[in-house]
């Protein structure tokens, strides 16, 4: 029982700390002079290390930079792991998340989402040898996803007969698929297309999306001023055409992904 009281005390302390930070986050950020943005650093083309400059760059990073510019503060990037995203935000170690954060109702109970700044098609990658070409063919099969990702929860929700096996990172999940340890890999289409292209084992991405996932910037709850400001920045980026420029730079023509922006920046509804 002593253990629980110690843990409880830790929890109270942690909430006390974030409680003071929540007085007015927007004012805090401006006073501090920098915006701390949590980003993955391992997800091309959203947030990854540039091979030459060794800087973390990408679509998520550019969006965060725009938010920082609008606030008139410097941007500080903090690398975070997929499953640590929400705890890092809740504990006040980062101000905002730009980290492939797909909207789910469970997440929306814990944190606030900005308007959508990207919409991801969640698809499934299989090996050509497996003979699986449709989503229906996955019933009762083993499907992998990154631990703690919304893809994992999507598979459980939409293919309930499938057995999910999760790994810490993309490379382990991909290797498990390449070695036939699992039958399919659920993730964002962008990641899967790139993996299929690089794979030595012939692979294909199942045409139909399992689900569509709007991504928002993650914010702590109860920070209305900060949230309005962020949504204002996103709206301005969309109307001025700057968002198209950023999108084109990382995902458009001439990149490995070659896709067009076909979504709006708008409030995410569950």
């Amino acid at each position, binding site marked *: 029982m002593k*253990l629980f009281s110690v843990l409880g005390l830790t929890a109270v302390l942690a909430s006390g700390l974030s409680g003071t930070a929540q007085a007015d986050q927007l004012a805090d950020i401006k006073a501090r002079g920098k915006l701390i943005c949590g980003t993955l650093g391992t997800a091309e083309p959203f947030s990854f290390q540039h091979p030459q400059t060794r800087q973390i760059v990408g679509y998520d990073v550019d969006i965060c930079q725009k938010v920082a510019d609008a606030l008139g503060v410097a941007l500080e990037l903090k690398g975070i792991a997929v499953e640590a995203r929400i705890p890092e935000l*809740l504990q006040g170690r980062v101000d905002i998340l730009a980290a492939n954060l797909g909207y789910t109702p469970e997440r929306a109970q814990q944190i606030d989402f900005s308007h959508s700044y990207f919409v991801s098609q969640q698809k499934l990658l299989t090996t050509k040898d497996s003979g699986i070409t449709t989503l229906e063919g996955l019933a009762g099969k083993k499907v992998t996803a990154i*631990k703690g990702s919304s893809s994992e929860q999507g598979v459980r929700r939409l293919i309930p007969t499938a057995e999910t096996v999760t790994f810490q990172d993309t490379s382990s999940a991909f290797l498990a698929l390449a070695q036939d340890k699992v039958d399919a890999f659920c993730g964002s289409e962008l990641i899967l297309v790139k993996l299929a292209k690089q794979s030595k084992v012939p692979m294909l991405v199942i045409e139909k999306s399992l689900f569509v996932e709007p991504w928002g910037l993650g914010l702590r709850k*109860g920070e209305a001023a900060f949230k309005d400001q962020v949504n204002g920045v996103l709206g301005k980026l969309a109307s001025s055409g700057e968002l198209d420029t950023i999108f084109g730079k990382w995902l458009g023509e001439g990149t490995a992904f070659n896709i067009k922006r076909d979504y709006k920046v708008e409030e995410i509804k569950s």
Partner: protein
Amino acid sequence: MGYVFDLGSVLNGKYLDWFLIGLATTLALTMAAWCLAMAMGIILTLVRMIPFPPLGWFVALYVEYHRNVPLLVQIFVWYFGVPSLLPRPARQWINAHHGEFLLAAIALGLAAAAYVAEDIRSGIRSIPKAQYESARSIGFGYLGAMGYVVLPQALRIAVPPLINQTLLLFKNTSLAMAIGVGELTYRTREVESYTFKTFEAFAVATAIYLAISFGIMALGSWSGHRLKLETR
């Protein structure tokens, strides 16, 4: 917005089931790896006692590999590396029969075997050579001297460190999470990613790990008293 510590939120419905399934898998993995570790540890000790130097070198190499390469790497080698050397039908059989559990048990068991072999060897070395020589001089053969005089004392001495290895092995099973074995830590992370109740999920896992570790330690201290030889 204060943080409400609510154990009930992770100890009900499917989350409770996940913890229980995880606990069962952790225990099964510990047992399987422990049996392999003991069997392999005893074999290694016996092989090392054969007076033929290359065999001794082989055991030394085995022990050094398993003690010096990070356990997580060994698990990856067994999970991703070894099966790719096998013929395709064998690979398919492993993949279809929860290969991750089997391969994790092998990796954990073989690594623990290196420590077990060292512990038993220390036990044997702690018995003065004079006892062996005295036994031989009053007519015991090699096997008789080892079996009646040296080993009964040596194994008693080796029991506490062996209990310690069991404790380490039990905790090391959490590394199997990395290759998708649904043991306690893996399930805890799942509960956490669904509920975002980080404190609660890990509090439950911590309590379970502690309870079982204390159980193993109690067994160790009981057997320590029980097996102690009266010395004058």
